[in-house]
């Protein structure tokens, strides 16, 4: 069983690693300027010159894909970071102190997580002030409950272990026990949740941008490219296909990582 988890983890690591490498290189160098229009290359077929062909403005699809994947990755990372930090604080404090606030908060979190995240994201997008970063904010807020819940559970579990009692007897302050002593023990469980969160973030960003309520032009994003590509399915099926495969690889990589880390691969 451990062997199998290891294999899954390694597969995830390879896929995610390759994607990350391409994204990082793409941040500094792409074969073409992603926004450079070139009339001569309009609807170029995939070739050595244009790996994935060119779109209706003659822009190199591969370069745009790399840029879009980078943007999607950045949005996912930023929103997971927001959810993680706030969730960590809320979950840590409620798990440590318990009491009725903990009860009420957990009930609320339970009912929030029962709703499909795309529905909540749409509502948040509607009510947040519009702006370039509101999708990050919306997704970040959305991820707080799941992180808070997992941290709370772990902290409540660790709270009564001997090392914590020991630290208490030695007069270590609550905050220090919580964030210096307990937190490192929560990290392993958290890692798998972070991978799932990433997974959800990529999927949500792609869906929202595909629907036209996420990333707005001229900013790049995989979801937006997919909705553009859909208009040219008949003349350039490889456009939609390559964007879709990029999304799948991102999601698959993080799904495998999460499973290899001991999660169940879906949230």
């Amino acid at each position: 069983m451990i062997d199998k988890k290891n294999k899954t983890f390694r597969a995830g690591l390879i896929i995610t690693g390759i994607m990350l490498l391409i994204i990082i290189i793409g941040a500094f160098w792409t074969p073409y300027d992603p926004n450079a229009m070139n009339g001569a290359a309009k609807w170029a077929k995939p070739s050595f010159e244009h790996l994935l062909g060119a779109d209706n403005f003659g822009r190199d699809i591969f370069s745009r894909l790399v840029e879009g994947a980078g943007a999607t990755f950045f949005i996912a990372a930023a929103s997971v970071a927001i959810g993680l930090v706030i969730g960590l604080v809320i979950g840590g404090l409620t798990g440590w102190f318990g009491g009725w606030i903990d009860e009420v908060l957990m009930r609320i979190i339970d009912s929030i997580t029962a709703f499909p995240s795309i529905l909540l994201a749409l509502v948040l997008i509607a009510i947040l002030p519009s702006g370039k970063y509101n999708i990050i904010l919306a997704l970040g807020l959305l991820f707080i409950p799941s992180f808070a819940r997992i941290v709370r559970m772990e902290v409540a579990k660790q709270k009564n272990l001997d090392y914590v009692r020991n630290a208490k007897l030695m007069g270590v302050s609550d905050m220090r026990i919580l964030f210096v002593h307990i937190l490192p023990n929560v990290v392993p469980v958290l890692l798998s949740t972070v991978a799932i969160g990433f997974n959800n973030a990529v999927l949500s960003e792609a869906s929202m941008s595909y629907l036209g309520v996420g990333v707005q032009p001229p900013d790049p994003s995989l979801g937006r490219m997919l909705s553009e590509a859909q208009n040219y399915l008949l003349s350039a099926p490889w456009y939609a296909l390559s964007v879709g495969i990029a999304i799948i690889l991102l999601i698959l990589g993080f799904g495998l990582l999460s499973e290899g880390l001991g999660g169940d691969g879906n949230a």
Partner: protein
Amino acid sequence: MRYVCKKTGILIITLILVSLLAFLAFQVIPGDPTTKLLGTEYTPERAEALREELGLNRPVFVRYWEWLTGFVTGDMGMSYSYAMDVRDVLHGKVAVTAVLAIISWIIVVGVSIPLGIAMARYQSGRFDRVGVAMNQVFMAIPSFFLGILFTYIFGLVLKWFTPGKFIPFSESFWGCIGYMIFPAIAISIPKIAKVAKLLRSSILHEMGLDYVRTAYSHGNSRWMVIRIHVLRNALLPVVTYLAMSLADIVASSIIVEQVFALPGLGRLLVTSISNRDFPVALCIVVIIAFVVVFMNYLADIVTQYIDPRVRLD
């Protein structure tokens, strides 16, 4: 029975809270709806008159109560962008989404359960190994991308259906189902992968328990053990998941409707949010939220009915 009563009580309270939260959420939106409604005819006096007419000047809880009673009796207010009752805007859309969700759900149940059982039965065999790998991949494919793929393969290349040309019920029942089957499959494939995986691991978990060893010692074959003893225990978490997954399916249909240009609730929700037509958006959000809450309620009741040991209070 007491359990059902208690759950029903919680259900009603949850429904009220959810609708209140959704209502409040749509109240904090920056911007004044009257600006949008009046457009170029905007003057401060007219805006004031309109606000009076729409009742926007009254306290928020009074408005919520009026909205809720209206919602329940079918009077859902006016749409900002269509200048007609929300109810008329929603007319016909609910049915499209409901039919799509139900077809998808039937496909999920019909395919994933035999698949999960077969994978567990031939554990570590070739079928199982291929299945596990395929599951992993299919779980990662977003249903809206599958939708685009289907549009290309079945719509444009094979011409089994005309993309974007939805056939309403009123025209042809089978035509409508025939068009809906493609979005339904697109929605169900990732879900099938998830449920099959869940069922497989649930069966394999049960297979390690003591009663299974006893069943083997009575001379049962692996298939008999699974069918007679293990399955009814292993299905329990799956049934709960399936009941709740209907909500997930409705959520996926929000996006897939866009891919196939289906005139359903999801598509309307997206347009009403982009147009900032909040009375419509609010009603759709509350309808979907009610479905979610109700399916969770049903899942609890069903689970308890199948296995009286489970009392989630």
